[in-house]
């Protein structure tokens, strides 16, 4: 689980705020994989929103008579060990899975932006303290941090995601700080300061808007990590409380039925794989669209 794959993202120097969004968008749309990924993600988010309403059956309804049915006309993706419709569980699982990942990223990005901005803008002692704290968190193995957080807070989807989110904080902090440092020296910031703008104003009006793009890119990638990390914690026995349908938990249950009922793990597993692939393609597309350095013949 790539809990703290951290600086995976920020190879590119801070892109300047792309003046003409439509260009960026066109570049993105030309990236076919990214476009496909975006469509898939939209579908998933739509499912997450519509949730159980579009599922053909109740995802939690137990029906022992129908257990472990292979895919057929009635149950397109078969049934699980309790006779629950696998398709319905995958569809209904979109919401908890996505919501959880979004919460984790929210925590990581929120804390990361605040800490990173503080460190990058204030510099000096604040910077030193924040970055040493991040060094400590980075040196602390992510999975252990997550396990310990879950041990303290107890199991359950939300707690798992808090655990994952906390372990992703350093990635965002470092990214934001790095971006801030480079932007701080840019002419428009220097001139803003020269004409007497206050710190808060500079931060809010000039610096942060330039950081968002990168935070957005990292967030997309981190969304994938969060889903994987969550499923790994499920594997270790710290996950959602049944009978909530969640892809990681269902995949882990299905793994134990791999020999008897391959479809049980295939469905949620494929959902995870597709979503993460989509996230990655979208991430690549966004990066290429925003980063002029990569726009070369």
């Amino acid at each position, binding site marked *: 689980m790539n809990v703290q794959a951290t600086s995976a993202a920020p190879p590119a120097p801070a892109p300047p705020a792309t003046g003409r969004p439509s260009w960026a968008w066109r570049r993105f749309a030309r990236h076919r994989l990214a476009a496909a990924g975006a469509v898939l993600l939209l579908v998933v988010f739509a499912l997450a929103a519509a949730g159980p309403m579009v599922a053909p059956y109740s995802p939690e309804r*137990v029906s*022992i008579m129908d*257990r*472990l049915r292979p895919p057929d006309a009635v149950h397109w993706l078969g049934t699980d*060990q*309790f006779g629950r419709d696998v398709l319905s569980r995958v569809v209904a699982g979109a919401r908890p899975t996505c919501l959880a990942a979004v919460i984790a990223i929210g925590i990581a990005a929120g804390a990361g932006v605040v800490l990173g901005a503080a460190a990058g803008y204030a510099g000096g002692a604040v910077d030193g303290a924040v970055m040493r704290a991040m060094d400590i968190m980075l040196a602390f193995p992510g999975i252990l941090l997550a396990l310990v957080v879950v*041990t303290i807070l*107890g*199991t*359950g989807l939300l707690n798992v995601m808090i655990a994952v989110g906390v372990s992703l904080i350093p990635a965002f902090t470092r990214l934001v700080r790095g971006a801030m440092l480079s932007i701080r020296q840019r002419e428009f910031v220097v001139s803003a300061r020269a004409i007497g703008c206050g710190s808060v104003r500079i931060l809010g009006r000039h610096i942060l808007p330039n950081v968002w793009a990168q935070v957005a890119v990292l967030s997309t990638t981190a969304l994938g990590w969060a889903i994987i990390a969550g499923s790994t914690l499920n594997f270790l*026995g*710290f996950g959602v*409380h*049944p*009978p909530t349908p969640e892809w990681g938990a269902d995949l882990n*249950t299905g*793994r*134990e*039925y*791999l*020999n*008897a*009922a391959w479809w049980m793990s295939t469905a949620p597993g494929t959902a995870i794989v597709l979503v993460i692939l989509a996230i990655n393609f979208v991430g690549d597309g966004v990066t290429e669209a925003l980063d002029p350095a990569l726009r070369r013949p």
Partner: protein
Amino acid sequence: MTTQHTPRPATSAAGARVTRRTLLAGALGTGGAALLGATRTRTATSAPAPQGRLVFGMWQSPESLDPGTSGLISSGYISLNLFDPLIWHLPGMRQGQEYFPGLALRWEVSGDAKRYTFHLRRDVKFHDGTPFTAEAVKATLEHIVNPETKSRSAITALGPYSHTEVTGDDVVTIVFKEPNGAFLNNVATSGLSPISPTALKRYGHQGVSQHPVGTGPFKFQEWVLGNHVTIVANPDYNWAPPVAHHQGSPHLAEITFRIIPDASTRFNALRTGEVLIAENLAPTDVQALQHASGYTVFAAPVTGMPYSIMVNAKRPPTDDLRVRQALQFATNQEAIIEALYKGIYEPAHNIFLPGTLSYDPTLDKMYRYDAGRAKSLLEEAGWKIGAGGVRQKDGRPLRLVFINIANFGFDQISQLLQAQWQDVGIQTDISAQSFPTVAETYNRGDHNLADFFYYSVDPFLMRALYACDQVTHGFNWMHYCDPQVDALVTKGNATADPSKRIAPFRQAVRRVMEAAVVIPIYQQRAVFDASDRVQALRFTVNGFPIYYDATLRA
């Protein structure tokens, strides 16, 4: 109380300990076939040189190889082969006889069950060459009671130990402060098996756990932490119990206990031939092996407590007897078996397993699935149907906290129960904590429902499970205290005469069942899935494989 009482978790979510109802090979249980085999082969006493390496896929790491220390079944699986008990308890191996000589040839019990005298064999040597004597028995028991040892199972199995009297080299008397009727059954398990006094002196109370020196048919060779333990044949072994198929050294040259935490990997390693026998496979995989050629599924009956749900009698709303009874009636064990262990395990309706002394089949009728009765009991207790079909009282929903032991084999069962109970208007919140953390949670009483089972060779197990003084730091996770049960259990242990012990234990069981603090789910067995190359495997009364007679077909 028991040799191995610490949870024997099943890795698979589906509960894993699945079985075949037919007993195979030399599994204990019914006498006939095993008896015939025994007498026939016993005439051929000359043993060929040990050959073959057996690899056993074990789900959990042992924490110690000293039977006096460990509480884990995985440790017991290994140490049973390294150490011999004073006597063997092997019911079913020979008609009309349950106990057989081990390191002791004869034994006597005083009428008050306070003094047990053993007459020892004189021809036995420990693996390190130390001769086995009465002093070794004494040293072992003193090792167990020494607080430094931090003994788990063995100290409970030993009971109210006072001291050991040595009368010459070959006579030893174990004296108890209080009557200990359960001792004969307990001394026949591996927990109290003698350890070399030389090794005890050399390695110390903790050190012997890594340097186990016993008298058993196999000798310790190596322990690679977190990976495997290897034991090899003891060529000098010549003191097998009389019901063994042969005498002399064991047939197998070497056994490796390979630690493989993941159930699917154990199954796959069995299929690739990397292990020849494995435990705790997913039930669907066991079912697949039953129908596949080339495999044998061993299913040994065990004694003690079935796989059960423990209901907290202190924490609301299960502090109300009617709510607990409603849970009993709302539970459909047959449906659970149908869903998870079809045609493999038997549903349980008693807090004892059938093989346990004083098991009373008439009590099985006390609670049978009856949703209507469950509903009326809940109504009676003031829980009325509210929003979403969940019952309410004083504006609060009927919501139970169900804390599973992680990877213990209850994940699926608890979800089925959740669905069954929902039908009568009970909401259940399921979570899991890993052992041993969960034990503390249970002791604190944060749960309404806990899961557990308890292997034991004697009904005195009730002491550990239901005694008032076991509530906050023992296994009494029902937080249930009935002084009358305590008194009955004490009475049942006041004699070693089985016929006199049965009545008080039966009464105690009835009281516990009437209090509805345990919901039995299924009668587990010790299930081992093996390549059909593994032959002549036998099992102890608590389902531990005995490898002494086992062979590997080429």
